[in-house]
């Protein structure tokens, strides 16, 4: 058994001591697999180092009545100028094991071939990970500490690691830290969430995950810093990366993926919807949203999602059959081409649902766009420029901008900082746009004075009829 009682850890920083862990209590016995969820910087790695004994707690006590591994997936403890073989021998000696027997195992498991005789400093990160994992498996610990976040390696190797760890050694105690609730659900039988140095334990996975998600929602939103991209595809690519770095986004889509795999379409749609409201340009999840709405029979919404994905650069070749499948029979648009971006100027690119909602908000002051109208516009295959021009010419003058806009069909979540999205869409600077608006400028003029809508041809509203 491992007992952690009242453990607090401070780190010294230039600005005084920083409390990383605060009054942690936990017990771990054989056969228990504790999954600890936490965001980046929540103290997960510190906790695992303390339990492993690499560091001493500032206050409190940790007693270990079984042998505890070092954190797995940890490539350290290798001396760079020693060969793989030397490192295996060293660890074997340290733990009183037969070096030659272990060498045979590592040779077979890590598949490093002749590289085992080369200095570890010449290894790639993948090779290092394989060696580290193989060495971790040669010592039969009672308790394994696993850092899922730091795990690397190809999928084939992952499979073998999972077999060695969770199948052959399923009787051991384990403590796994991760920010992926799905991973923990698959491998753990006890759950805890670490937040701001405090650990809360949960009886089952679902309550732990709900708690974790609630934490994410209350935290600061990760936002992209708008770069004045003139080419849309480059902007979309960088926005996708921002999305992938956002833990809240990743947690939502993982949860949605899990729901999709259980065929729980409503929950999956809610997850993808909420995620896309955070980062509306992560096009691959528009595809997923299309799939899960199609499964529920909402064909119009599915078509919107598929066409949006295509407008943001998903391959048409893959999605065209789905679009055909969800299009109403006999529809005249069946034969019309699917609009795709060509990597040129933003104004000439096809709109997705997000853009339609943003442009409608700009032109008409509405808090979104109706599914039917969006579908018509998407099928027409116009460019962002022509869509905005038409909306402006049809809209009444002087509409106030809405507070929030729904950027995903189905109204899963609304976005209050949509003006930033709009500014980014037309190439304006966010701060300058806000400043111009607060000076009382008309939205369109404000965008122009913030450097946006360059070269866009928007008809001047006919003021005589207004």
């Amino acid at each position, binding site marked *: 058994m491992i007992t952690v009682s009242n453990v607090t850890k401070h780190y010294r920083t230039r600005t005084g001591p920083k409390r990383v862990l605060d009054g942690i209590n936990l017990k771990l016995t054989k056969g228990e697999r504790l999954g600890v969820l936490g965001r980046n910087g929540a103290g997960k790695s510190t906790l695992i180092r303390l339990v492993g004994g690499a560091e001493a707690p500032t206050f409190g006590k940790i007693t270990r009545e079984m042998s505890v591994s070092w954190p797995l997936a940890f490539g*350290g*403890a290798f*001396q760079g*100028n020693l060969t793989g073989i*030397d490192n295996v021998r*060293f660890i074997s000696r340290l733990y009183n094991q037969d070096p030659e027997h272990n060498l045979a195992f590592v040779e077979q498991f890590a598949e490093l071939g002749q590289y085992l005789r080369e200095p570890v400093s010449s290894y790639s990160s993948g090779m290092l990970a394989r060696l580290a994992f193989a060495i971790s498996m040669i010592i039969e610990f009672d308790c394994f500490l696993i850092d899922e976040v730091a795990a690397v390696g190809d999928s084939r190797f992952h499979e073998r690691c999972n077999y060695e760890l969770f199948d052959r050694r399923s009787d051991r105690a384990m403590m796994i830290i991760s920010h992926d609730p799905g991973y923990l659900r698959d491998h753990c039988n006890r759950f805890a969430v670490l937040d701001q140095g405090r650990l809360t334990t949960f009886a089952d996975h679902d309550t732990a995950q709900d708690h974790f998600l609630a934490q994410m929602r209350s935290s600061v939103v990760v936002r992209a810093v708008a770069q004045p991209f003139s080419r849309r595809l480059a902007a979309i690519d960088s926005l996708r990366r921002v999305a992938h770095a956002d833990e809240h986004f990743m947690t939502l889509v993982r949860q949605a993926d899990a729901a999709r795999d259980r065929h729980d379409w409503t929950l999956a749609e809610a997850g993808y919807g909420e995620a896309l409201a955070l980062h509306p340009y992560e096009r691959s999840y528009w595809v997923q949203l299309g799939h899960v709405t199609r499964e529920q029979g909402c064909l119009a919404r599915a078509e919107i999602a598929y066409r949006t994905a295509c407008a943001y650069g998903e391959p048409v070749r893959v999605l065209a059959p789905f679009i055909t499948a969800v299009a109403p029979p006999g529809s005249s648009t069946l034969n019309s081409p699917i609009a795709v971006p060509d990597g040129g100027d933003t104004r000439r690119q096809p709109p997705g649902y997000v853009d339609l909602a943003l442009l409608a908000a700009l032109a008409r002051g509405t808090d979104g766009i109706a599914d039917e109208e969006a579908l018509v516009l998407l099928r027409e295959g116009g460019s962002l420029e022509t869509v905005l021009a038409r909306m402006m010419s049809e809209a009444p003058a002087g509409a106030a901008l809405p507070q929030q806009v729904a950027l995903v069909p189905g109204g899963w979540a609304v976005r209050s900082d949509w003006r930033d999205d709009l500014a980014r869409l037309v190439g304006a600077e966010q701060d300058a746009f806000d400043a111009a608006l607060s000076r009382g400028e008309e939205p369109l003029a404000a965008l122009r004075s913030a450097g946006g809508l360059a070269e866009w041809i928007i008809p001047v509203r006919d003021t005589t009829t207004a």
Partner: protein
Amino acid sequence: MAIAAQTSLIANLGVQRRVLGALLLRELLTRYGRHNIGFLWLFVEPMLFTLGVTALWTATRSLHGSNLPIAAFALTGYSTVLLWRNMPGRCIGAIESNMALMYHRNVRALDIYVARIIIEFAGATMSFFTLSLVFIASELIKPPEDFLTVAGGWMLTAWFGAALAITIGALSQEYELVDKLWHPASYLLFPLSGAAYLVSALSSAVREIVLYIPMVHGVEMIRDGYFGSQIEPIYDPGYAIICSLVLSVAALILVRWTEKRLSPR
């Protein structure tokens, strides 16, 4: 399970021996590798130092206040300097460069220091021994008059050097300044440590001061054993032992204190 965790003293000693053995091999491999003469550098390097200094002192006919052959003087003097100076030098930053080892719970900070000290001790001792044999065989110097006194002086210097090494090493982990200050300090201590003079050649006022330096006693004791009948050795083993003892206690406390503050990545 509680029984397994609270292992007996004998089992603990076994673990200790194994850990030290593994660390020693690892240190040797890391430091010397398998290229050219490999491990032999362990004592060839200090030998080259001592030989160089002997040659230099012979060429310049350094004054040392006695009619001893200069080779004997340099051998005894410079070998002891290597002994107490290299151990702290190798212990500074030893934990930092082996921080990842802290993930193995049976490796303690003290083990890392001890492994490095053993290597330095072995290197300096082999160099001293080999050079003594060579010098004696080539009749540059005579065999030691009292082998045990030489060994006693040597061990005393080694003890003091080891305690100094752990103290400086542990302090350097917390305070970078220690590393910066040790280098000038060790250079200044070299001429003061008795390597370059005989205490009996100094005036009584200076003599009183230099005898506060613990290393002086070790060198004088070695010289007493080597050629005591030709010189007037002045030293107090009791003083050196007390200094080493106090420093050893300080070293052990400091290591524990430092170990608590380590944070490996």
